[in-house]
Every structure is written in C-alpha cells, then in structure tokens.
C-alpha cells in the first residue's frame, strides 16, 4: 500500500459534533483543505448520535428538537471535499517549528499518524460530571449520557428498573426514553428545590427559537406524570447498594444548599442507577496544546479561555463548543462556524475570505443563543461542593487507581501545606490511571478546597500530557506521516 507523505491541511478539526461539523463545512465552503478526526464511528457528536448505518433507521431521536441537526448530518455525510477520519482518536498536539505548522497525533486501531495543519480547531465536547458517592463504582451505576446513548443509538436498555438522580435537564429526556422502552422508572430525583412560578416565567423569556427543546422537556415531564413516576425535587443520591451489581439506591432529602436533612433517607430498589448532575468540558487536548483555562463550575469546570472569534491563547488553535463552556448544541454549532470564518479570514484565498459583516451576523446569533443557555445553566447548575461531600471514607475517589477518599483526606491532614491538585496526584495517584483524571479531578479539587479553605480556581488543574488518552505502543511504533 502506498502512503502519501506530509499531506498538509489548512484546518484540522477534532470532534464531529455540532461544533466540529459546523466549522468543517464552513471552512470547506471557503476553499480550505480540512480534515476531521472523531473517535466515534459516525458524525453527530453526543447529541446527534445516530443508530449505526447497518440498522434500519427508525424515526425520532434528539435531532427532532434541533431541526438543524438533520441537515447538518446530511451535509456532513455528503461532503467529499473534507477528509473524514472516524474511529480515530486524537492524542496530542505538537508544533513543528521547521514547517511552521501544528501536528496532531492520531491513532486508529493499530495505526498511528501525524497530521499537519496550519490551524487546529478543538471541538471535543463534554462528558457527564462524575459524582463519587458510596457504591458509585458498582456495575449498574451509569451516567445519564451513557444510558441515553445506549438507548438512542444502540437500542439497548441496560436494565429493567431505574432510579434517576441529578440536577441536569437531560435526566427528564432519559426518563422519557426509558418509559418509552417499557422500563420501570422508580423515581426521578432532582437535587434543586421545586422551581417557583416566577423562576419558570423568567425562563420562558429566553425560549423563542428553542421551543422544540422546551416542548420535548415538557412532554417528558407529562409522560412521567402519566406513568405515575414520582418526580421529586430537593432529593439527592446518598449511596448505591449491592454486592456485585447495583440492587438499590439510598436517596436523601436536601435543603437549598444540597445539605442532607437528617432522618430523611429512603431506600429504593433498582437494578440501574442513572446519574446526571451536569457536564464537564472536555479540555484535555486543548490544555495539552497549552491553551489557558478558567474555572467556571456552572459552565463545565475548567474551560478554555477564548476571544470574540474563538481563538485560544495558543497561536493557531481555536476552540468551539463545550470545551469553551457547556451551552448546548445550537451555541456549539454557531461557535464552530464563527471559528471557521475567523480561520478563513487569514487562510482562505483572497476571493473567498469572509467579510466582517459575516462574522458579525454569527456573533449576533451567538449572543441570542446565550440568552437561552445562560438561563438553563443557572437553573440547573450543579453544586460541586455538596457533591464532593458525598464520598465517605472508603468511597473511591479515583476509580482507575482505586484511591479512597480517606487516603486523600489523610494525606491532606498530614500535609497542610499542599495547595495544588497536581501534588495530590503525585502523592496519592489520583488521576494517574486510564481515564487520566477525567473521573476524579473535580472531586479531588473540592476535597483540597475544603481542606485548605481556598477556592478551587486557586488550586490548579491536572497537567494534561500527550497522550491525552491511552494509545497503544503498536500504533506509536507504526507512526507515519499520514493516515492510510
């Protein structure tokens, strides 16, 4: 087989969700040479995840709430100008001073390659906020996104009797999908207090243009009521029970600050526990590239700092969608397009460069989309400190390296001078395992914050190093200049 060496791109995009697709299509339309890398096997990202092509497509899915989704996927599938690399993981960003370009390390099964690009767009999305409570490592405890994607893209229901606990609106949609699949939903518990009428009315003002989504949520809530599923507010997960797998959940009533009210524990039987307290921005690749980040807990933890055209602090690296703040599909898509327009301003042929008016128009649309997502965000913001207090002594904080809360707290007691999460990582091994800290960093940070009395944003974040996800030695040994 022949390989083309040093194949150069104008723009490399990591992530084929609404942000990455929006950017790739916009950039290709301006004549830029674009490659897209996504470790999933098809376009769509998390929200527009589709059933595999080998399945007969049934109607429905989340795309109905976002009419632009269907069109976006159709255009992406049809576009042959763009080099699509699915099933391909991006694990590192490097700079080639000689060629003045960025190099993206990617791997696909046992093959590895470096892609060269003049610009890089990181559009890696977000993942469910992990919450460490007693029993959270038992098989049968799943994230809301995990259950949702199994149902909607694989038509698999991972259990038969479900308890859903969280604070994110996604929980309602998952409960609805579960009911439709014939599952028993024992209860849906939101940690925040029941919203007051005033709050709901304030929310409605932001709705125009997002009616589909609101209707979907309202329909889900109605469906729960019709099936007699208790929808509780002011109720939080305390523990999962079970020996080799989950057999039930202990729920507890909480006050406005999510502090448990003594004596209100309830046990609910279930074989699957669905956790949805929010999302964390997926910033590992951007941080490894050197992008500056800021701590904004209600927007997804540490998020990448960007200017008005989605440029990060690193030359040649743009960031669109959720790594720059969790705000929904519409916003992510617009941000991707804006980044592509800005990139085309310098890289496209003179006749194809966008004018300021084109950027202005997208920026206006972004401000409008923000009105909605800001309201939603305030409404459902996770209380990170309260969630971190759920871990009892023998609860594992780090699932990969099996480090308990007691081990971390002990270390902090003995070393009162410790004031950054990387020191905890080095001493306790939290964050050194396969997931590279994605599942423990924020709990560790909250515990450190509690011990030192300092806010989380003063305690640093894990250093992200290449490879940002484990990559096989075989694929590194076979590293070549482009993907075959």
């Amino acid at each position, binding site marked *: 087989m022949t390989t083309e060496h040093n194949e150069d791109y104008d723009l490399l995009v990591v992530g084929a969700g609404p942000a990455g697709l929006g950017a790739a299509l916009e950039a290709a339309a301006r004549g830029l040479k674009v490659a897209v890398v996504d470790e999933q096997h098809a376009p769509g990202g998390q929200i527009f995840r589709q059933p595999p092509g080998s399945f007969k497509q*049934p109607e429905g899915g989340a795309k109905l709430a976002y009419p632009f989704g269907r069109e976006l996927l159709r255009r992406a599938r049809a576009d042959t100008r763009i080099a699509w690399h699915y099933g391909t993981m991006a694990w590192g960003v490097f700079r080639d001073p000689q060629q003045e370009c960025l190099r993206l390390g990617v791997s696909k099964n046992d093959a590895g390659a470096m892609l060269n690009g003049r610009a890089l767009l990181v559009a890696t999305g977000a993942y469910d906020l992990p919450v460490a409570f007693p029993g959270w*490592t038992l098989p049968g405890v799943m994230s809301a996104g995990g259950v949702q*994607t199994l149902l909607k893209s694989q038509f698999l*229901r991972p259990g038969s009797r479900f308890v859903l606990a969280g604070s994110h609106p996604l929980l309602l949609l998952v409960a609805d999908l579960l009911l439709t699949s014939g599952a028993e939903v024992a209860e849906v518990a939101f940690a925040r207090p029941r919203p007051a009428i005033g709050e709901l009315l304030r929310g409605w003002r932001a709705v125009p243009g997002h009616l589909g989504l609101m209707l979907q949520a309202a329909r889900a809530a109605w469906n729960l009521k019709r099936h007699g599923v208790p929808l509780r507010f002011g109720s939080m997960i305390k523990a999962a029970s079970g020996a080799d797998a989950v057999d039930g959940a202990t729920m507890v009533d909480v006050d406005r600050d999510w502090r448990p009210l003594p004596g209100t524990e309830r046990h609910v039987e279930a074989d699957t526990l669905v956790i949805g307290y929010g999302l964390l921005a997926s910033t590992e690749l951007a941080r490894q590239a050197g992008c500056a980040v800021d701590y904004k807990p209600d927007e997804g933890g540490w998020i990448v700092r960007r200017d008005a055209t989605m440029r990060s602090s690193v030359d040649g690296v743009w960031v669109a969608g959720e790594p720059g703040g969790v705000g929904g599909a519409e916003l992510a898509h617009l941000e991707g397009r804006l980044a592509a327009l800005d990139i085309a301003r310098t890289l496209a042929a003179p006749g194809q460069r966008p004018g300021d008016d084109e950027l202005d128009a997208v920026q206006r649309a972004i401000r409008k989309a923000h009105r909605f997502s800001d309201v939603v965000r305030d409404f459902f913001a996770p209380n990170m400190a309260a969630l971190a207090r759920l871990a009892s002594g023998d609860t594992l904080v780090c699932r990969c390296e*099996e480090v308990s809360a007691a081990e971390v707290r002990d270390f902090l007691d003995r070393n009162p001078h410790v004031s950054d999460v990387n020191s905890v990582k080095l001493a306790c091994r939290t964050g050194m395992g396969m997931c590279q800290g994605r599942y423990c960093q924020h709990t560790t940070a909250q515990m450190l914050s509690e011990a030192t009395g300092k806010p989380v944003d003063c305690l640093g974040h894990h250093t992200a190093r290449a490879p940002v996800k*484990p990559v096989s030695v075989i694929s590194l040994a076979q590293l070549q200049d482009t993907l075959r």
Partner: protein
Amino acid sequence: MLKTLRIQPNGGDGLRPAPVTIFVNGAPTTAYPGETVATALLAAGSARFRTTARGAPRAPVCNMGVCFECAVTVDGRPGTRSCMTLVADGMRIERS
C-alpha cells in the same frame, strides 16, 4: 433473570441486520453488526466487564469513551474500550 434488553423501536423486528457470532471468554454469543462490543456484552447479560487490582467488578459508565471502565481484551488487544469498538464476525473478547 436477564435484565438488559435489546429494544425494537418500530414495534416489530427487522431493525437489526443478520446476526454474527462473537466469542465471549470462549462462549459463542450473538451480536448484530453496528453494535459495539459493550452493547453486545450488556445484551448478553454481562454485569462485570473487568476486575480491578483489588478484585472489584466494573462495567460501562459513560458509553462515550471517557471512563475506561468498559475495557476488555479484544482479539488479543488488552485495555480496549468496548463502548468504542464495533463487533465483527468471529471476534474474540475476554472479560476479566
């Protein structure tokens, strides 16, 4: 009792293509092209995908490649995320 279920959103069947056979710890198991290894294992009733150094059972959490709890050995490659890997006819999977 088999708690996990392949659902049929259209009411009838005909959604899935013709099945293939994969081997889970040597035992032949049915799977459908387009399914991930995680889906096939869950559908086959597996509760334990991997066992930790301390002997605890683990199974998929995120289904999107982030948690690494679904790692199994696929055709001899250990540490493979089953939620990100598609089944293929004759594939050999080892849960630990």
